[in-house]
């Protein structure tokens, strides 16, 4: 069989990418797993400690606090992003005068980096002089020192994160809406369905696969959130925004406990993987 002879072509084409992937993606992941089994300081491994890093995390109050902060963040963030992105996608789906401008307006934050977004929101939520407090004062309501108060700080960070990521979610939801045949809405209209009926009985069920992507990706974002926290609160006030990535950063790059830091990274990864798996199962079963 002449056709089966070896051709170097595919290997030459894929080789360079695969080599860099191996060095800069696969190797660091494996290496992080390896490091998490050591007492690893700034000058390298001190001692093999097995699962000691993981066990000590299990009894570390700061670790559990960071876990609950992150979980709280996810519980606020994921439903908020999902609801608002669906609302916007439904509003932006059908033609209107100026719809292109509206779409651009909601997509634009995709290109704004986290540092700029964090500064913009810091400025907006500045106590007394920021726009948010000005509006509240105008309405006769008291302002807040938003980022200096435990409850509010996490919420403000959720707003920024949503502001950055929402455009992407709306884009994929719009693609999903385009795949729903207009005839369904037409038939529903003849049956006297209200817009709410349409949403509940047509739009949401048929959007399910895309909704799954939105929920899974938002959960991944929530457990990875880092830049916003570092720039806006540095984990404060009183550790109320010290999410798990922030703890990892402190352990690794401020205390140079690299093994322990790697262990936190592995835990975050396992949580994300487990949640994604559960979400996929949950959505699939309900179809």
């Amino acid at each position: 069989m002449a056709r089966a002879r070896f051709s170097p072509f595919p290997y030459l084409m894929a080789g360079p990418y695969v080599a860099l992937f191996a060095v800069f993606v696969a190797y660091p992941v494996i290496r992080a797993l390896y490091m998490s089994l050591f007492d690893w300081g700034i000058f390298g491994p001190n001692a093999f400690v097995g699962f000691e890093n993981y066990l000590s995390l299990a009894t570390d109050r700061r670790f559990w606090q960071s876990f609950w902060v992150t979980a709280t963040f996810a519980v606020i963030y994921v439903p908020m992003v999902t609801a608002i992105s669906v609302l916007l996608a439904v509003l932006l789906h059908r033609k209107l005068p100026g719809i292109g401008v509206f779409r651009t307006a909601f997509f634009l934050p995709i290109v704004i980096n986290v540092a700029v977004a964090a500064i913009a929101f810091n400025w907006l939520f500045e106590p007394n002089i920021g726009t948010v407090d000005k509006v509240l004062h105008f309405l006769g309501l008291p302002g807040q020192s938003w980022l200096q108060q435990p409850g509010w700080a996490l919420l403000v960070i959720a707003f920024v994160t949503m502001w950055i990521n929402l455009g992407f979610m709306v884009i994929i939801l719009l693609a999903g809406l385009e795949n729903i045949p207009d005839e369904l809405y037409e038939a529903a209209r003849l049956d006297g369905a209200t817009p709410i009926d349409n949403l509940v009985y047509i739009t949401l069920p048929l959007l399910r696969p895309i909704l799954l992507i939105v929920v899974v990706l938002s959960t991944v974002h929530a457990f990875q959130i880092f830049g916003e926290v570092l720039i806006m609160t540095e984990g404060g006030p009183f550790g109320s925004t010290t999410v798990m990535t922030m703890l990892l950063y402190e352990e690794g790059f401020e205390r140079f406990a690299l093994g322990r830091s790697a262990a936190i990274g592995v835990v975050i990864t396992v949580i994300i993987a487990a949640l994604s798996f559960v979400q996929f199962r949950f959505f699939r079963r309900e179809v």
Partner: protein
Amino acid sequence: MRNAEIGRWLLLLVLAVLWFVPLVSLTLYSFAPPSEVLKGNFIPSQWTLDNFIKVLFDTTRGVSIPAAMWNSTVIMVCQVVGILLLDVPAAYAFARTKFVGRNVLFALILVSMMMPGILEVISLYDLMANLGLVNTLAGIILPGLPRVIGIFILRQFFMEVPRDLEEAARIDGASEFQIFLRIMVPIAAPAIMTVMIISAIYSWNNFLWPLIVTNSPEAMPVPVAIAYLSADTSAALNYTVTLAAAFLTSLPMILLFLFGQRWIVSGMRPTSGIK
């Protein structure tokens, strides 16, 4: 317009205005003198270009914004060129050729998309320190090259190209590489454009890894430099300057977005069906 449409239009207008408040406020105050900050009106009553002059000519705690923009430009050009040179052939190989380990490798590449970046930074920092690449542009650039998104978009595109095209060329005696270069690459131009723009945005805005691998102000790209400056906003004096720096450094990306929105949107859609 019917009543329902007017309602929808008004609702969108209100939401869009709200959505724009952060950027508008940032832009307005980047043109305001520092004395306006404490008044905190939404629209400042005095205007100035002093903030931009400071951004362009001053060095604050070692950070110079023009230098950071230069760093970011070098990083962006290297990463975009590198990503295209790596991704286009690799995506083609994954889409249209058979080789040992192809499916396993592609599955691994997809799985890596779910890996949080934070898991890799610790060991990556260790690796870069050993290679002597901390605080260098190469140290920032290299780990950004094997990004997954470009492979994903381009592979999807190449899989949809009909077989007939290459069969005709093959009968004419074209080599595999000629088919790739002369037929497939030109057809894939829109997908390549998408990957190019998305990579440029990623490159300019990437924060986590550059933050970890740079600690000297001269090596910092834009987002890290801005974060570094903002850590000092306690002095109201610097506030408007930081806002001006944020505005100025975002401008290239805003322009790129307005120019490339079509490609960006098509690249982000779940099927990436680039027409």
